[in-house]
Structures are given as structure tokens and as C-alpha cells.
């Protein structure tokens, strides 16, 4: 998942970046609204955290501009201004959720997770596909009830594919959503991750959860079960 964090307080921005990197996110950080607008419009962002009080123009204005330019990813407002009138204005401007500073990181994490799931049309944090279960909160994978070890990048790829179940996800798109902008992108690395995931998810080779569509990309082919 690729997250855009917009915050003018450098220490907090660094902390947020560190936190989300640790959670396996590709993080794009911006300290000004202009920079954020550029990143938000140009890159494949999955979710954004926006502070309202920015030095050049307000976070509210940034959200409006992003929405006007067709950016549909979920946006969470993170601000010190916590009056209800301001919350309503923020949500009406196009934000999807609102969190007041200072905040608990667990709460921020839960809300970001919920926003990503919601944008993918998944209400429950546990994505279940037959014997495969992925807990997006604890970032744990279970196969037939048994835990399966995943590396951070394997988890990222798996979560992204599951959240886009049935959709063809190109290698480029997958790379864009999983890696930060200055990361050296090598499609062979992605193929290796997919190969490893297939072995971990389907050691018998009976489920075939990840389809490869030649020249087009990959598709999560299993249907979600309750």
C-alpha cells in the first residue's frame, strides 16, 4: 500500500513515516500542500493523511483540489483543530475520516486500515478466501488455521492483490503501489515475491489463488468467503 503523509511539523512527519514504513507501507511524505498536490496527483496513492494547517495553502483546499482532479483514494484529516464544525467542513471537502492530534498510533493505524478496506469494498479486517485468511490489522496470514510467515514485501503484495480481488493488476501498478518513488523497481523481484507467495499459499498447487495473465499482470482469483 502506498500512503501519502502531509504534515508540516518535520518531527511528526518523520515519526509517521517511520511508523508506516514499519507497517509495510510505501510512504510518500510532503511538508507543503503544493508538494502534496503534486505527489497526490502524479503517483498511485492508496490512502492519504493530511494535516489541515499547512504553510502554503490549507489542507482543506488541498483535499478539494485532489478530489476535483479525480483522486478517489481515501483521505484522513489529521489536525489539531477538533471542533465539530471543522470536522464537518473537512469531511464535506472530500475527506473520509478525521483524527485529532495528539492521537494514539493504534487508532491511526486502525482507521487507515479501515479506510483502505472500505475503499476496496471490504468491511471486515479479516479477508477470508476458503482456507486462506489474512488479518489486515495484525498482518498475519493463516492457511487452514495455521500461521504462515510472510516477509514485509510478500505481505504488501498479497494484501494489495486481495483488496483488488478479481481485478487485473499490472506489474507497473503493483510496483507503484508497493514501492516508494525513489525505489529501484525491478519486475523480476516482483515475480520472485509472487512465486514465493504461491508456494506459501498453495503448497499443493490445488487452489491457484494468483493467476498470471501474460503481458497484463496478476489477478487474485479466489472469491471471498464469510
Amino acid at each position: 500500500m502506498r500512503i501519502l503523509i502531509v504534515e508540516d511539523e518535520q518531527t511528526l512527519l518523520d515519526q509517521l513515516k517511520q511508523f508506516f514504513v514499519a507497517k509495510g507501507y510505501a510512504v510518500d511524505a510532503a511538508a507543503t500542500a503544493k508538494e502534496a498536490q503534486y505527489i497526490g496527483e502524479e503517483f498511485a496513492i492508496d490512502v492519504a493523511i493530511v494535516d489541515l494547517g499547512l504553510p502554503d495553502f490549507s489542507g482543506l483546499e488541498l483535499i478539494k483540489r485532489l478530489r476535483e482532479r479525480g483522486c478517489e483514494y481515501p483521505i484522513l484529516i489529521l489536525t489539531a483543530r477538533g471542533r465539530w464544525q471543522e470536522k464537518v467542513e473537512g469531511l464535506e471537502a472530500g475527506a473520509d475520516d478525521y483524527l485529532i492530534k495528539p492521537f494514539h498510533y493504534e487508532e491511526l493505524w486502525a482507521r487507515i486500515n479501515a479506510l483502505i478496506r472500505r475503499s476496496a469494498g471490504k468491511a471486515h479486517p479479516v479477508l477470508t478466501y476458503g482456507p486462506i485468511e489474512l488479518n489486515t490489522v495484525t498482518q498475519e496470514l493463516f492457511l487452514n488455521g495455521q500461521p504462515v510467515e510472510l516477509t514485509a514485501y510478500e505481505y504488501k503484495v498479497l494484501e494489495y492483490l486481495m483488496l483488488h480481488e478479481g481485478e487485473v493488476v499490472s506489474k507497473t501498478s503493483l510496483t507503484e503501489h508497493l514501492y516508494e518513488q525513489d525505489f529501484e523497481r525491478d519486475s523480476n523481484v516482483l515475480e520472485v515475491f509472487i512465486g514465493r507467495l504461491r508456494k506459501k499459499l498453495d503448497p499443493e498447487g490445488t487452489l491457484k489463488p494468483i493467476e498470471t495473465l501474460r503481458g497484463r499482470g496478476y489477478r487474485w482469483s479466489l472469491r471471498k468467503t464469510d
Partner: protein
Amino acid sequence: MVRDSLNLRLLIAAGATLIAFFGFTGIALEKAFGDAAKKAIQDRLQAHIYTLLASVELDDKGNLRQPHHLPESRFTTPGSGLYGFIFNDHKLIWRSPSALGVTIPPQSLLSGETRFLRLQEKQDLWVLYYGITWESLDDKPIPMILAVAEDTQSLLRQIKDFRQTLWAWLGGAGILLLIMQGLILRWSLRPLRAMTDDLKDIEAGRKQQLEGRYPSELSGLANNLNILLQSERAHMERYRHTLADLAHSLKTPLAVLRGIDQVDEPCREISSVLSDQVDRMQKLVDYQLQRAAARGGRGTLEPLQVVPVLERIVTSLDKVYASKEVECELTGTECYCFLEEGDLYEFAGNLVDNAYKYCHKLVRVQVAPVSATENQAAGFKLVVEDDGSGIPIILREEVFRRGKRADESTDGHGIGLAVVDEIIQLHHGTLHYSQSRWGGCRWEVFIPHPIQEEADSAQ
């Protein structure tokens, strides 16, 4: 009542002055008229004395010859009210035919001396005695006293008539003056009344300053009051902004501090202390910030429609709690309040947010205007219900205390309901908790309008 109305005070003072003035004037005029009438009687009686004197003659022997042809016919008509008498040496020697049965006492007078007096014995009479000495041919002077009496009835009638006319006119003039005084006072005090209305509007938040055109005597006061109001408002705004800025500027460093134990992994002990202290500071900042933001029972410039605000809150919360798929029913007729918009958002937002947070699926928000009754002022009522688990009885008091939360399992700082309660109290409203039809929370808020007549016109 007198203390409450300047108009009434002035009217009573003017009325008392007018009564005193007309009272003294009436008494003085009545006295003057009485004196003048008395003097006129005396003069008339003096004239009758001279007439009588002219008709008296002496015979050859020097005895008084009774006058036969009296020039004034009333002397000859019995009971006419005009009587003539002649005394000699304290003996009545002649009385006019009209004085039949009428007696007056003799008086001792020197020649040329007059005495005017009122006799109230058998009859009430004004009497003028006049002493003369009749010189006879044999040089033996004859002392005589001529007296003319007139019935007082005519004078008393005149005085009575005069008094009636006088007091009728004075009374009429007094009432007219009092009415005019009242109108003048009303007109003169109109600027004061306008100033009072302006001040009421300022108090209710409908006006920012005294805007009326006041006479020169009041314009200085109005200017000073405006300066005072502006200064007070600026001071309050500065206070609120400073407090809000302070609170906001503290929040980001607090967020950084909270991030330390998440990201930098300090030792467990420091992390726990840090987390507790940041929590404490955060609660203080949140609470003081929301208190600073509440305007504190002040009205607004114009009535604010409640339903659109609730619609915006509900739409926003539908977005935030989208994954919960809450079914929220918002019902309400056209309803106004006189709160500052931010205050309405704050208490309604917190209540509806709690309902969304703690419900299973259902939330109901109802708003309705409340008309004034004998026991209750006009205002509006807001009811927020959910189908959650409700608040256990032992925790119901606790939820109003800042920092206290009935449910520790959800997000939040425990500030919401304390602020809701505080805002409602600042606006002299009430907040009641009961169990909803589904067994969850049911919050009922009533907020009275600050000025009742305004409310009636707005509703």
C-alpha cells in the same frame, strides 16, 4: 415599580408638582376672590348708607323724621336681604320695612367711624355700621349710627359658584397638563428606551453595538458604551483565540511526544510515564479548548436552523462510520435556535457521534420546536437515540466528568459528554439520559431561547 420605571417616576413627580401648584393657586385665587367680594359688599353697603343718610331728615323739634321714600326698593320689601337700621344712643330708632323681625346689636362708634362685620346669630349677615353726628339748628348735636345689613347668602353663592368654576378649570387644566407631561416624557425618554432596546439586542447577540441616533446628552454615553463593548469583545476574542492557539500549538508537540513510544521504542517505564502524562495533557488541552470555544450562553445575530446542521453532521458521520452501515433516521420540523453555530455543532456532533459509535445499527435523531408554557420557556428539543448497550446505572454520573468514559474499549478521550453538558448548561438548557426504545442510550436536550418574544416571532 417606581424604582423600575424612570417614566413613572417623572410622571409621579410631575403629577405631585402639578397638584401642589394647582392646589395653592386655587386656594390663593379663592381667597382673593373672597376678599374682593367682601370689599365689594362693604362698598355697596357704604353706598346704601349714604343713600339712607340722604333720605334721613329732622323735624322742627330736632327729632328724626323717618325716611319715607327710600331710593333702594329692597329696603321696602320684607325679607329682601337688604336691611337698614338707625341707632341713637344705643337705641334703635328706625329700621327699614324690609328688616321686619331682623335685629342687629348696636355698636359704639365715633362720628365718621365705620365698622364692617359679619353677624351669624339668627341670620347670617354682613353689616356695615357708620357713626355720624347730626348738627341741628339749636346747636345740639345728635349722635347716630346708621347700619346697613345684607344677607350673606348671595355672597356665599357667588363664592361657591366661583369655587366650582375655578376648580373645574384648574382640574381640567391639571389633567391636560398631566397628559401633556406624560406625552412629553414619553417623547423625551424615547432615546433612552431606544438605548435600552439596543442594549437588549447586544445582550442577545443581535447587534454588535449601539446603533441608534441618540440626542447630544446621550451620544457621549453611547459612544463610551460602544468603546467599552468593542474593547470587551476584542478582549474576549483575543482570550479565546489565545487559548485556542495555545491549545492547538500544544497538540502537535503532544502528538510528537506520543509518537516517541510508538516509533523510537524507549524503555517500558519511560514509555508508560510518557504515555500517561501525554494523555493527561491531552485531556486538559481538549477540555480547555472546547470550553474556550463555547461562547457561553450568548445568543446569535439571527435565528439558526437546526435541521440543516444536523443533516450535515449525520452525512459526515455516515461517511466516517460507512463500514458500520448505520441506519440513521433524522426527523424534524422547521426549528430555530439562537445558539452560536459552533456550539450547536459541538453538542449535537458529540451526541450523534456517540450514538454512531455505540450503536449496533440504528440511530434516531429527532428535533422539534418547543412552545412556551406556564412552566417552560420556548426553545427546541433534540433527542438522540441508539440501539447500543446504553450506559450502566453506576456509570451515568461519571460520563459527565471530563476525562471519564463509560466504555474504555472505543476511541476517544472522554471529553465529549462533559463538553456537551457544559455547553447546554451555559445556554441554560437541560440534558437527560434515559434508555432508548431499543435499550441503548437516549439523550434528550432542551435549550430555551435566550429572549422569548424573539423565539415566538421566529417560530
